[in-house]
């Protein structure tokens, strides 16, 4: 046993160093000012809700998507390309050949006009032209060509769709005037993609955390620890569970049978029972519980590591899939081919089972300790079921954002590209006599990555070969019913649970969701509680480098766990320290450790989103730096006084101070769900006591964007708020400032939208006043008979005449003129002769009132031609023309044969058949605008939108009632 006093001593010295460092920091200029303010008695921070606009300014309204995309494009993509398994490409045909990626970049958004020219593009052009808003991915490479080593920069390997308003988007950081120039709405939140002209959002996906131990009861009532291990290379799930209430086993898909856990330990080199018992725990109760498992290997005749390995090796499922048919070192091989069952078992234990615990050079020590810890927890829980983990607890959940999903996809596509390249290299190099030396770069097919991305985002089917992942509905079309529907979509969280399961757990509102997830905004019916929405200030973290934190932990006095014996690890005075689910070490003064780490974070020396959480029952400290955790800002309080002062508020509003600075000096901090367990959070200043560690910024932040629009929600029955959240998105109003230019397939736009008279604070924060949805109606409630149908209103006709509830309905109709493989192409044809003559007769300025419609009557003479009335000479309808049911809008004709090659090239004219685009609708309407453009394939694209005015009456009783509830 190591002397505990020495350990304490050393950590004490280190810790005091840190605290000195901290206090030095405290006396910098900024802190001086802090002290000055703190010295004055702070009675109340007036209007602390005024922090909200600063938060939204700092983070942006829908920042989480953009942050994760930025992280992917700037960091993760480089990590993927530089990963050991992806970095280098070799060929079996020629050992001298290699290709090495040195760097990767994402360029500026552009569109390929044809095979040779690509031009810069704005998102708005993409929407109109049915293009994909994407940027090229280029790599820097070194490779061999013949005997030369070639260095090339900027080799394009594919295109990646660019998220709007992300750092790679041309809209990032533009002013309102600049955005207006690009025809973009300044209030548009961004965070979505434009794929083939369609706006699509990658929804946030809620999942159970990876690499964490979750102890639950399986369907047989056994206590089972399930660990989903996930690394870049492999994803797997292992269970360590008590079978039949006595023995502990390990279950993994790769193993045909459950394996006794002690056999696993022995196979990993922990041969001594004494050592195992020490690691698991040597208290009498623990021994009793563990004894049956400990005897198990002897019944099986396993004493040594070799025996254990042989036993496990025999159990490994012999599927080709596991072996990985792929070429060694590349592609989809999960582990190296092994010669003997023992070798294979060792390989499996090292890199497949619990693969998130690193095993370097087959040193299984950390993995053994980890497994023992899990056994210990399973046995403890087996005795005391109150220690079971709650799967629905939000601290056990991670949100997968666009960036993470794209990075998974990119890695898959990149590997596929490399496999293709390798195949071509093998072919090219194996040719015995070549006229010119083989150049891999010319073999790069950019389609693999480009189409892979477009397919995935356009369909929402996330298919990854490596992880056998096949998810549907990951992306959705951004609904542009109203501005709020668009915002609401960006905060939506999709759960991975199947919707048919009739379990209430995942659907119900968890107390741990407070402040993170909107309690009101969820759909009704099958997706109830599974689809959620983020609260106003909730923030989703991105992956953080964990290595510096690990080093810092050692600086703060952690003892390396690999150097300790089981007795020391399990000593009642010691707390285990976990970093992202891995055991790092032990600390005997956990409170001090936690306090110091938090102090460092508040001083800005540790990243702001690192969470530190002390678990007293498990006697463990959990540090998390991984991405996907939901967290929220809180005001830090000390001795019953918030560190935020009125002075700071004033400086904030005058622009002398920014919120980022407040976070950096620890006035405001982000706290995640796990760390919230160590906090005592006051709702209001009046409740503050000395014990409180934090204070809420404002109660309204528990609600999301959509629920925040409800006035006085706390006076409503709770389902009313939920109903309003669903209906508020359907409100008709203004979609965006560029709504009339957008040419959406269907647009309902109110002619005279109004700012609401009864407002909420959220309303101002989300710019609802600039893009209102609806009108204020004065409703008289009286009891009488005749028209008193429930949930209905009688509208005043004069109000309707004067424009109440008036709206425009614009519908897009489009067609493309295709070019066919045989050289034939679609054609536009003017209206039939008779009409054309009448049209030209109409030309010129209609003069006096009396002589107006002489021309118009002449057209109507031939009833067969009436449907061509709206057409101009070029065969496209004219703006302002009236369309009736059956009217031709675009008089297109197509070649009858598109297969016959002789048709196009021959001298005789290709026969055409008419394929006009005609207007269908019960009510006549008018052509509003016509757009002729070309799409990415170079095909001519004709879009037109027709509009029709409708009177109000779409204001349903339900809609009115919902808003009335609060007002």
């Amino acid at each position, binding site marked *: 046993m190591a002397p505990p006093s020495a350990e304490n001593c050393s950590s004490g010295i280190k810790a005091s160093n840190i605290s000195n460092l901290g206090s030095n920091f405290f006396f910098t200029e900024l802190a001086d000012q802090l002290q000055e303010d703190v010295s004055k008695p702070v009675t109340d921070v007036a209007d602390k809700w005024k922090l909200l606009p600063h938060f939204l300014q700092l983070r942006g309204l829908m920042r989480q998507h953009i942050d994760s995309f930025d992280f992917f494009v700037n960091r993760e993509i480089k990590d993927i390309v530089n990963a050991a398994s992806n970095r280098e490409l070799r060929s079996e045909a020629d050992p001298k050949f290699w290709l090495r990626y040195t760097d990767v970049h994402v360029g500026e958004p552009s569109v390929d006009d044809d095979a040779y020219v690509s031009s810069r593009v704005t998102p708005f052009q993409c929407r109109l032209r049915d293009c994909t808003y994407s940027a090229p991915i280029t790599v820097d490479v070194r490779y061999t060509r013949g005997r030369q080593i070639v260095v090339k920069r900027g080799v394009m390997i594919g295109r990646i769709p660019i998220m709007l308003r992300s750092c790679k988007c041309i809209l990032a950081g533009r002013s309102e005037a600049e955005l207006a120039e690009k025809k973009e709405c300044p209030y548009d939140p961004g965070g979505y993609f434009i794929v083939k002209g369609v706006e699509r959002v990658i929804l946030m996906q809620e999942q159970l955390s990876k690499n964490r131990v979750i102890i639950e009861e399986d369907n047989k009532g056994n206590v089972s620890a399930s660990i989903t291990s996930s690394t870049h290379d492999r994803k797997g799930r292992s269970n360590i569970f008590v079978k039949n209430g006595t023995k502990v086993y390990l279950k993994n898909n790769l193993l045909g049978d459950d394996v006794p856990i002690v056999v696993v330990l022995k196979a990993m080199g922990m041969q001594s029972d004494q050592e195992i018992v020490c690691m698991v725990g040597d208290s009498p109760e623990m021994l009793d519980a563990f004894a049956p498992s400990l005897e198990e290997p002897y019944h099986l005749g396993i004493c040594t590591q070799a025996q254990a390995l042989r036993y496990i090796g025999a159990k490994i499922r012999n599927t080709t899939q596991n072996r990985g048919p792929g070429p060694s070192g590349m592609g989809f091989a999960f582990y190296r081919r092994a010669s003997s069952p023992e070798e294979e078992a060792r390989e499996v234990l090292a890199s497949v089972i619990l693969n998130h615990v690193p095993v370097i050079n087959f040193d299984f020590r950390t993995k053994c300790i980890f497994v023992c810890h899990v056994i210990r927890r399973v046995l403890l829980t087996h005795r005391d079921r109150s220690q079971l983990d709650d799967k629905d607890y939000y601290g056990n959940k991670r949100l997968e954002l666009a960036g993470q999903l794209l990075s998974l996809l990119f890695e898959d596509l990149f590997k596929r590209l490399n496999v293709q390249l390798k195949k071509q290299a093998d072919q090219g190099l194996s040719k015995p006599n070549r006229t010119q030396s083989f150049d891999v770069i010319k073999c790069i097919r950019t389609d693999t990555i480009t189409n892979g991305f477009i397919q995935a985002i356009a369909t929402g089917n996330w298919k990854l070969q490596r992880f056998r992942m096949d998810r549907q509905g990951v992306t959705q079309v951004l609904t542009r019913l109203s501005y709020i529907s668009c915002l609401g979509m960006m905060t939506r969280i999709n759960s991975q649970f199947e919707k048919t399961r009739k379990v209430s757990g995942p659907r119900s509102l968890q107390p741990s969701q407070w402040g993170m997830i909107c309690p009101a905004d969820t759909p009704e019916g099958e997706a109830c509680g599974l689809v959620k929405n983020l609260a106003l200030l909730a923030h989703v973290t991105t992956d953080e480098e964990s290595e510096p934190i690990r080093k810092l932990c050692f600086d703060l006095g952690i003892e390396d766990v690999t150097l300790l014996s089981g007795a020391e690890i399990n000593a009642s005075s010691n707390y285990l320290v976990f970093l992202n689910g891995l055991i790092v070490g032990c600390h005997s003064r956990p409170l001090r450790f936690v306090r110091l780490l938090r102090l460092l974070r508040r001083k800005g020396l540790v990243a702001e989103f690192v969470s530190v959480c002390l678990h007293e029952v498990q006697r463990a400290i959990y540090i998390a730096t991984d991405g996907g955790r939901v967290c929220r800002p809180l005001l830090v309080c000390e001795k019953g006084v918030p560190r935020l002062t009125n002075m700071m508020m004033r400086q904030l509003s005058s622009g002398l101070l920014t919120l980022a600075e407040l976070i950096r000096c620890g006035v405001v901090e982000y706290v995640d769900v796990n760390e919230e367990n160590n906090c005592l959070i006051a709702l209001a200043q009046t409740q503050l006591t000395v014990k409180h560690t934090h204070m809420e910024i404002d109660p309204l932040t528990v609600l999301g964007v959509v629920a925040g629009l409800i006035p006085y929600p706390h006076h409503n029955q709770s389902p009313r708020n939920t109903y309003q959240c669903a209906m508020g998105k359907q409100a008709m109003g203004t979609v965006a400032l560029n709504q009339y230019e957008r040419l959406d397939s269907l647009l309902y736009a109110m002619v005279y939208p109004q700012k609401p008279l009864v407002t909420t604070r959220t309303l101002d924060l989300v710019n609802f006043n600039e893009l209102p949805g609806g009108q204020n109606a004065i409703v008289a409630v009286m009891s009488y008979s005749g028209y008193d149908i429930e949930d209905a209103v009688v509208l005043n006709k004069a109000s309707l005449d004067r424009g109440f509830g008036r709206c425009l*309905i614009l519908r897009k109709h489009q067609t493309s003129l295709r070019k066919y493989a045989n050289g034939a192409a679609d054609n536009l044809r003017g209206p039939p002769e008779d009409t054309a003559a009448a049209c030209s007769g109409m030309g010129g300025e209609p003069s006096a009132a009396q002589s107006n419609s002489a021309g118009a009557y002449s057209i109507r003479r031939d009833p067969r031609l009436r449907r061509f009335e709206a057409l101009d000479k070029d065969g496209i309808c004219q703006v302002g023309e009236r369309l009736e049911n059956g009217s031709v809008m675009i008089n297109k004709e197509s070649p009858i044969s598109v297969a016959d090659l002789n048709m196009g090239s021959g001298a005789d004219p290709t026969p055409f058949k008419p394929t006009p685009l005609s207007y269908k609708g019960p*009510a*006549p*309407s008018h052509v509003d605008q016509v757009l002729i453009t070309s799409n990415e394939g170079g095909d001519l694209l004709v879009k037109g939108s027709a509009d*029709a*005015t*409708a*009177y109000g*009456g779409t204001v349903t009783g339900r809609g009115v009632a919902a808003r009335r509830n609060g007002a």
Partner: protein
Amino acid sequence: MSVNEHRPQPAEKKFESLEYTDEHSRTFVFGDEDHTLGNSLRHVLMGRKETRFCGYSVPHPSEPKMNIRLQTSATKPALQVLKDGLHEMVEICDLFDFTLDRAISDYDEQQADSTDERGIH
């Protein structure tokens, strides 16, 4: 014209007397009339000594029709009472017009000292 703009069609018949055996109890159907005439005419008819019963209704707001039910004593047929009532309405309008003119001139006199620059009437 907008998609769902609704233009009410004028009634087919301006006046119709529903045929019943008794000429002293009738229901008259007025096309293109509503509460405006209905209620005031009813009121006037109520004031006539031959009237036993008078009531009016608008069966449905989207139909341009108004009904008056009139039952009279044996001295006069209902149709005659209705005509008398309408003549009385005309008289009332004339009386109102006369009274209004006098009121306006009274008001103008009263305002004589102040500058009066009212436009047309």
